[in-house]
């Protein structure tokens, strides 16, 4: 291990703390954590301000629009805002704030960014189809012992493991 990574928490410590946090979340709100929903709501809001009619006609997006509640007035949006603040706090305390593209020395920044974009795109589609991302569906789903959470977790990590071989150049 390099010097730098030592600054990170022990993963078990982080795990226990997030586990406790999830417990608290379930205790207060009755549901787990999440992330992709916030992005979805932002997309819906953005679309609605750009092309209101089109959004209202869209079968998918229209279900997240309601007259009395703004899509941004959603607990997930606030949670993700909190995540940004929390991550910034942690990063600044540990001295990790730095604008950069992180990539394997074997590939160029450009290639890394293209893959990041593609990855994000797939994640965007997948998280909507799977009704949640790794944190919302898999992590919280596993904590509540739901079948959906385990299916999600296994299919995300299973696929990633299988596909890992083809993308090894990007990472190692």
């Amino acid at each position, binding site marked *: 291990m390099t010097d730098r990574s030592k600054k990170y928490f022990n993963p078990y410590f*982080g795990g226990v703390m997030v*586990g406790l946090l999830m417990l608290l979340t379930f205790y207060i709100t009755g549901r787990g954590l999440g992330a992709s929903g916030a992005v979805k709501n932002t997309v819906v809001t953005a679309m609605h301000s750009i092309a209101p009619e089109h959004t209202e006609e869209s079968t998918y997006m229209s279900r997240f629009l309601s007259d009395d509640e703004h899509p941004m007035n959603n607990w997930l949006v606030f949670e993700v805002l909190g995540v940004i603040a929390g991550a910034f706090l942690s990063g600044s305390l540990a001295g990790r704030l730095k604008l950069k593209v992180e990539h394997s020395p074997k590939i160029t920044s450009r290639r890394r960014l293209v893959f990041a974009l593609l990855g994000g795109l797939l994640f965007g589609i997948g998280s909507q189809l799977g009704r949640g991302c790794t944190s919302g569906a898999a992590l919280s789903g596993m904590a509540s012992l739901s079948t959906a959470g385990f299916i999600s977790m296994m299919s995300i990590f299973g696929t990633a493991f299988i596909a890992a071989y083809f993308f090894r150049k990007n990472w190692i």
Partner: protein
Amino acid sequence: MGPLIPQGIISGEWNNVFALLIGVVFGFFLEGSGFSSSRKLAGVFYGYDFIVLKFFFTAAITAAVGMIYFGYVGWIDLDMIYVNQSYVSSLIIGGVIMGLGFIMGGFCPGTSVCGAAIGKIDAWVFTGGMFIGIFIFSEAFPLFEGLYNSDNLGSIKIYESLGISRAFFVFALILVALGMFYVTGIIQKKVKKVEY
């Protein structure tokens, strides 16, 4: 007693306040454990860094075990906890797409937000990709609609679908996780170190 908001003990207006606070803590520990680094995340698939696995299973098991005990001592009404609907085929296919996205992009939504917060440009791009992906999905939703709504098993729990007792399942999960922690420790020693 709990969950507080669905039981009406705390008014629903507090939802967003708690969400913000919970988010701050969540972000703090995600970033602090190293989830803002895509190469650290991807390490789990190549055997040079297993934080994802360790973190993920520790968190899930802590929460799951804690919830069952909380339910027993009467702090949480387990029936009121949200359990995701199991739309099996859309979950699997969505999971496969997310898995591909994970290995290509090196982030998942929560971690990309963390990465973006501390200035990782690749995380920004990933988040941007997610916006486009969701946009594409909603535009192409009629194509997915059949799949999206098929094979719903309802809010079912894993031990119910496997037909075993809850205690047995969680116990097995703990043993599996501990086994994995041990094995990954050995693997990590053998695999060539990767500098990042």
